[in-house]
């Protein structure tokens, strides 16, 4: 139940916490929680169930660390990049994505709930329904979070390209 999904669990925890050691701790704690709660599990989707526990454990940790690490609320005004998407052609997007570091930074810059939807959808191929289950929101919300996450990513990559061309 746990080991087959270890990679997905670690990947999600790593993206949510932003740190290797934190992610390992989260996966271990989540695994133990899942193991203890196993008698209470009557669903058929073990992966979604485990990832739900991983997600909640990660957010608990983030909450605990909140006082240590200064987090600022996301500001649409500052990070909106209005109009940037106009210049994004498929070609320029792919050019911006060639750099792995750049891509990672683009995903890391996303708000948590956008990042988790994107990671679960594109890296683990989960359905909207599964993501909705894990994040505890309706599927419509998953759809709009994904759309907004992709729009942000597009703006981020387009902006990176423009700065590259300008320099």
């Amino acid at each position, binding site marked *: 139940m746990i080991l087959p999904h*270890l990679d997905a669990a670690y990947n999600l925890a790593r*993206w949510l916490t932003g740190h*290797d050691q934190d992610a390992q701790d989260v996966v*271990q704690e989540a695994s133990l929680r899942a193991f203890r709660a196993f008698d209470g599990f009557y669903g058929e989707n073990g992966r979604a169930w485990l990832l739900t526990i991983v997600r909640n454990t990660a957010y608990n940790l983030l909450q605990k660390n909140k006082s240590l690490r200064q987090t600022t609320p996301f500001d649409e005004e500052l990070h909106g990049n209005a109009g940037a998407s106009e210049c994004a052609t498929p070609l320029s997007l792919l050019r*911006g994505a060639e750099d792995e570091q750049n891509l990672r930074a683009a995903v890391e810059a996303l708000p948590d709930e956008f990042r988790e939807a994107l990671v679960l959808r*594109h890296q683990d191929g989960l359905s909207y329904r599964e993501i909705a289950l894990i994040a505890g929101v309706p599927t419509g919300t998953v759809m709009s979070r*994904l759309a907004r996450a992709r729009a942000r*990513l597009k703006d981020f990559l387009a902006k990176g390209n423009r700065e590259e061309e300008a320099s």
Partner: protein
Amino acid sequence: MVTFKQPKAFRAVDSALSEWLSSLVRWLPILRQKAHNLLRNSAMNNCEQTRQWLDAYLDNELDPVNTLKIEQHLLACAACLQAYEEQRALGQVTRAVPRYPAPAGLRERILSALRAESDPLTSIHSC
């Protein structure tokens, strides 16, 4: 009796038909305009709807009826087709974001944590 009335009936039908035809000719340009407007409006609505469902379509999350609608629209609308290509490229980019593979020691670390957790159990069913 019947044969006597037939021509009159024919004349009535004939005049009704020609009246209908002439009114049709009069209304035809207006009808044409209305049909044209209707098509243009529905095309505009289709653009809006297509953009809205594009992500779900690319994610294979759309039901067959709306999938067909979108595909038909993409064949007919260059602007939406371009939006589709852009979104598809973005999907490729997103899939290219590298995963974080689980570190080598994690599996063992979790296994031993689980073993420690279930120690009382394994001692009962020791095998």
